[in-house]
């Protein structure tokens, strides 16, 4: 059980040979494991540009006007990680990313990072995102759970 900061330091160079991107017929692309991952292990950081959340809708408008798929993940009320132009493969993990993984905002040396952890042992070749739950990402599926923090869409 290494402390988070040490595990995070190892993550940067271990991610490349753990996570691969494949072309998925359902949601365009998904992530898969290039080597077996143990339960609770750090898999990848959702890396990107940390922007103030008041910039998100301006950027979303900008990206959609240029037909660029927008990939963002909220850290907290004030900051969002925008992985659209600068980021890593984790951008293809939709916000649920279950059942194999879960996302956590981890504070490492005073900076917040969105880290994807393995929920259980994931075998080599198995997919990391729950790929077949959602059709193509373009058409959003409205979520009717009514939960206070619901993100309104399933995908």
């Amino acid at each position: 059980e290494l402390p988070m900061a040490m595990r995070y330091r190892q993550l940067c160079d271990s991610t490349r040979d753990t996570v691969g991107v494949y072309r998925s017929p359902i949601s365009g692309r998904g992530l898969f494991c290039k080597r077996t991952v143990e339960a609770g292990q750090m898999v990848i950081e959702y890396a990107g540009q940390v922007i103030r959340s008041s910039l998100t809708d301006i950027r979303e408008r900008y990206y959609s006007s240029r037909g660029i798929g927008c990939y963002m993940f909220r850290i907290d009320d004030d900051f969002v990680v925008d992985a659209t132009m600068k980021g890593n493969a984790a951008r293809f993990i939709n916000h649920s990313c279950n059942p194999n993984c879960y996302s956590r905002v981890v504070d490492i040396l005073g900076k917040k990072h969105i880290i994807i952890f393995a929920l259980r042992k994931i075998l080599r070749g198995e997919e990391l995102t729950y790929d077949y739950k959602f059709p193509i990402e373009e058409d959003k599926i409205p979520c009717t759970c009514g939960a206070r923090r619901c993100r309104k869409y399933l995908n």
Partner: protein
Amino acid sequence: AVLLALHDRAQCLRISDDRLSVTGDKGYCMVRATHCVRRGTWYWEATITAQPEGAHCRIGWGGPLANLNAPLGYDKFGYSWRSRKGTVFHEARGRHLSPGYQQGDVLGILIHLPEAA
């Protein structure tokens, strides 16, 4: 006396003890004054007493609905005058008004509101 409001501001801004200066380092956002006007013609003046290297500001009138996490004049609830290039902003559209202003300048900001509020 008209001061900078302690709570009517973006959360990443810090107000000085004398409540006459505001500092922020997380991008452009806004603080409102303690007093507001609702009708008639009003005028106030600001003297730029200090301008740290590379610091710029936008000063003017903002309504209660103006977005505090954006510069004044970003939306339709505010009108601002920028120190860099003296541009005036409303709904995020800049229009040239004057050369930029800097330390030592005194700005006069006037607003005309309809009498019947």
